């Protein structure tokens, strides 16, 4: 006979404000099997937990239901409470009457009624619970960092520093990411390469770090502590072990008309290339889309000039399998495509550029060797108009609803640098708001306005019209003076919104890590667990989680590393006892479960069964490895005959819950 105790939490006024907790406790006290029902102000407090422990002992409870907040918050707390009172911790069910009830309803009557239904559902489930015992699984002492920008680099360095092996996967031929493309960094104006490249070199020299450049994650299997990852090492057509990075091939390659992607296509490079001088690893890569040898089988110059004999036109993609205890996502961002913003004439005039393109135009390793020249005629621009919030804070379908966070500061930086180097150039900045929270940020912006005479105009640019004389006619409005402005500019710079890299979504699916509507990875808790994904063992570093500047990215990268180190330092992880098992009498051996299992936990065995007519029959039946099963339940719904069931979430329990809701 079940003896169930019900504990309804007020959560201060969080629940009690909208739910009549006394009425809930009273109603649930009348449910079959319930022998004790009460309410208390804070069930998670020590007094509240003692109340539960006492009730378990005094009433000999066989199961308890706590009506409180989400099980994400305090399920672990109450499981420990139950265990301390001698009750199996899996005989505890949480009815979430806060996030799923009191917080989303205003009407007390409705909310109370719903709280009773939620409580009733949990009682129906706990009545069918069985005691379960957790076992332990080992942790693979190796971490994977996906993305080799400053976020991934910092995370990898910190994890390696703690003595663990780290693999750093980067889809481009070199690590460095967006920061490598930036000229100077705000608010100190030190050169990005000068502070980034030492860290890149550290990565290359650290014997704990293995860099997989020009590689992508192909598949992820397994679970926290034991991920199985396949990495695709894309063919560079250059033998990494032989290439010395001398660069003779890039000089001799006749295909000089290949767009230089590192300079965002502002100039050209050869078909075989090293992205930039400080690239790590410094190994040449052949761009298969442009190489004449790979396309038509004619040329072979690079192969002839390579003294190391590193060129290999027949190189294939390689697949590497590796096990990891933890995975860090650091996939970063890209500026949005500006095709939807025809008013700014980005696709019409080469003199309308994005801010990232301006970084390259101003950089010493950029197309103009560091002299700012108009892309169209290579003349010195005398009037430059900056447009902020291009696609940021845009609630139409064209852009992004969020603030990209970095644009105010880098625009102030650009304006200041231009005024400093070319005092004869007038600089206008159109803005919606100037947002400068951050250490020394507002001071920096004020310097741009007060010391460097940058013209800040509150208002938006309505249209940019390329003129026959090569000028750009910028029409905008000044909201403070309520004037319509017409500016004849030589260049227009658009602060394009940033968005998560496109590779993030398929990766999120592979990792079963959740994303928000803007494709930023969701954190386990927005305030208290900002660097963890809700999926155990997956951590977040950098802009993949939300817009950030470099100092914030580096801070988060180190935080993610600290979480990874904490996980890898554990000798073993308590495994979840809620695993699947198959009823062999019902199992068809059809393989449906094996195919949906994301963890590869299911295999098949031939077993002999006694038939009703005293004959025996050998049948193929599923067998679950409980050490590998993570209890996701995919197999239980895929099974056509209902042979698969999940401990702690059995089909019967779920049916009982549904029945209790529909009663």
């Amino acid at each position, binding site marked *: 006979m079940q003896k169930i105790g019900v504990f309804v939490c007020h959560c201060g006024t969080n629940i009690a404000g909208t739910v009549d907790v006394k009425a809930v406790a009273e109603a649930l006290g009348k449910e079959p099997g319930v022998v004790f029902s009460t309410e208390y102000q804070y069930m998670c407090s020590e007094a509240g937990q003692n109340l539960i422990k006492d009730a378990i002992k005094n009433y000999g409870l066989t199961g308890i239901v706590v009506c409180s907040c989400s099980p994400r918050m305090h399920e672990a707390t109450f499981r420990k409470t139950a265990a301390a009172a001698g009750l199996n911790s899996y005989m505890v069910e949480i009815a979430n009457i806060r996030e799923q009830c009191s917080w989303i309803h205003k009407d007390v009557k409705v909310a109370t009624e719903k709280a009773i239904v939620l409580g009733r559902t949990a009682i129906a489930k706990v009545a069918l619970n069985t005691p379960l015992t957790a076992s332990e699984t080992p942790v693979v002492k190796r971490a994977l960092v996906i993305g080799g920008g400053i976020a991934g680099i910092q995370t990898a360095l910190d994890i390696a520093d703690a003595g663990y092996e780290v693999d750093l996967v980067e889809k481009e031929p070199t690590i460095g990411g967006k920061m490598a493309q930036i000229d100077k960094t705000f608010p100190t104006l030190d050169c990005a390469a000068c502070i980034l490249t030492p860290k890149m070199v550290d990565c290359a020299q650290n014997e704990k770090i293995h860099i997989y450049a020009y590689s992508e994650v192909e598949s992820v299997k397994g679970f926290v502590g034991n991920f199985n990852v396949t990495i695709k090492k894309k063919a560079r057509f250059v033998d990494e072990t032989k290439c010395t990075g001398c660069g003779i091939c890039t000089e001799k390659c006749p295909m000089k008309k290949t767009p230089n992607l590192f300079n965002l296509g502002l100039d050209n490079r050869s078909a075989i290339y090293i992205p930039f001088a400080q690239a790590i690893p410094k190994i040449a890569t052949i761009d298969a889309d442009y190489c004449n040898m790979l396309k038509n089988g004619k040329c072979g110059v690079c192969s002839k000039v390579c003294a190391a004999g590193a060129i290999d036109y027949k190189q294939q993609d390689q697949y590497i399998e590796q096990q990891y205890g933890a995975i860090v996502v650091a996939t970063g961002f890209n500026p949005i495509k500006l095709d939807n913003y025809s008013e700014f004439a980005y696709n019409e005039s080469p003199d309308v550029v994005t801010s990232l393109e301006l970084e390259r135009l101003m950089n010493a390793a950029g197309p103009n060797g560091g002299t700012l020249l108009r892309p169209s005629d290579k003349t010195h621009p005398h009037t430059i108009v900056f447009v902020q919030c291009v696609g940021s804070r845009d609630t139409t379908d064209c852009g992004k609803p969020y603030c990209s966070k970095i644009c105010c500061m880098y625009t102030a930086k650009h304006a200041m640098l231009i005024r400093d180097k070319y005092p004869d150039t007038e600089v206008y900045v159109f803005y919606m708001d100037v947002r400068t929270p951050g250490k020394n940020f507002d001071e920096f912006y004020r310097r741009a306005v007060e010391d460097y005479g940058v013209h800040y105009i509150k208002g938006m640019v309505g249209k940019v019209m390329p003129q026959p004389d090569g000028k750009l006619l910028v029409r905008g409005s000044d909201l403070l003076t309520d004037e319509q402005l017409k500016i004849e500019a030589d260049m227009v710079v658009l602060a394009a919104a940033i968005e998560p890299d496109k590779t993030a979504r*398929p990766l999120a*699916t*592979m990792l079963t890590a959740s994303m928000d509507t803007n494709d930023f990875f969701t954190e386990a808790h927005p305030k208290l667990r900002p660097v963890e994904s809700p999926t155990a063992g997956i951590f977040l570093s950098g802009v993949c989680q939300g817009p950030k500047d470099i100092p914030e990215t580096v801070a988060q990268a180190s935080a993610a590393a600290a979480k990874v180190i904490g996980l890898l330092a554990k000798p073993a992880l308590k495994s979840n006892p809620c695993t699947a098992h198959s009823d062999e*009498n*019902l*199992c*068809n*051996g*059809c*393989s*449906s479960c094996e*195919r*949906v299992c*994301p963890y590869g936990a299911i295999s*098949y065995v031939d077993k002999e069964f006694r038939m009703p007519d005293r004959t025996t029959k*050998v*049948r*193929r039946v599923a067998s679950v490895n409980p050490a590998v099963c993570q209890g996701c339940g995919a197999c239980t719904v*895929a099974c*056509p*005959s*209902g*042979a698969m069931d999940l401990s702690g979430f059995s*089909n*019967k329990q779920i*049916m009982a819950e549904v029945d209790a809701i529909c009663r």
Partner: protein
Amino acid sequence: MQEVMKKRAKELLASGEVTRVIGWKKNEFDYDITPAVFETAEAIDRDFVYDDFCGPNLSKFTFQHQKNDTKTLVFLKPCDTYSMTQMVTEHRVNRDALYIIGIPCFGKIDIEKIKADGMTGILSVTSEGADVKVHTLYGDKTYVKIDVMAERCLACKSKYHTIYDELIGEEGEVMETDRFDQVKELEAMTPDQRFEFWRGELSRCIRCNACRNACPACTCESCVFDNPESGIAQKAAADSFEENMFHIIRAFHVAGRCTDCGECSRVCPQHIPLHLLNRKFISDINGYYGEYQAGEEVGQRAPLVNFTKEDVEPDVVAKGGK
């Protein structure tokens, strides 16, 4: 064709290559054909038949009558091979214990269409080329075959055999069909109209389980409807809605595995167009995950039990129903 098949079956029996033959057997009437196991040349000579009434899909019958310790010859029409391939994929039959001969099919006759035309006292029906001659107590009538062909054959999806050890006749091709036309008509209805349509159709169900017994995707060791532990068995008998639930649950269970062989509708004594439920699922799966035909190839991964990075996100799945 029938004679070629008989000859080959007897040869294989005589050589000891197989010890049993699964084919079709004539009953009292020409059009009343049932699947059967033949174990001797005499039985084949006496009863074996292959004509335009041999509609029953022998794959399910093979599953029910399979023996592991001996080899069985089975004749499969193109659409039967899809069912067989699917069963092999699901490890429901032992491929090694089967010798499969693929045979051509030019569409099967639906006797109900002839009866619906008012023909009674039918003594025999013979089919030659495009002519179907019906000989009755009250006189004879000749039909054009296409007018009396089964609905599923009019929307034939393939003349190609997906699994066989040898072929009799020439291999055909996968056909272009308009088999989703009726699904589109149903989709065009309002939810209320659709609900009424299905209530009307399903209310005729007498729960004879013929559909389940004939369905080559229904091969479970123990059906959830027969298993009191499943919690579903009683759901399908809870109220007047039971028949509806039975068929809808069954359609869900075979979703992604149904090869659209049409046996469910063929065997239904109440003439419920059950295949439309399955076709709706097939058309949805095609729409969401790209064209997929169950039973095309052994070992293929059905979209519903597979994962690709291109899979639709759940929010893409349309809302509907009542």
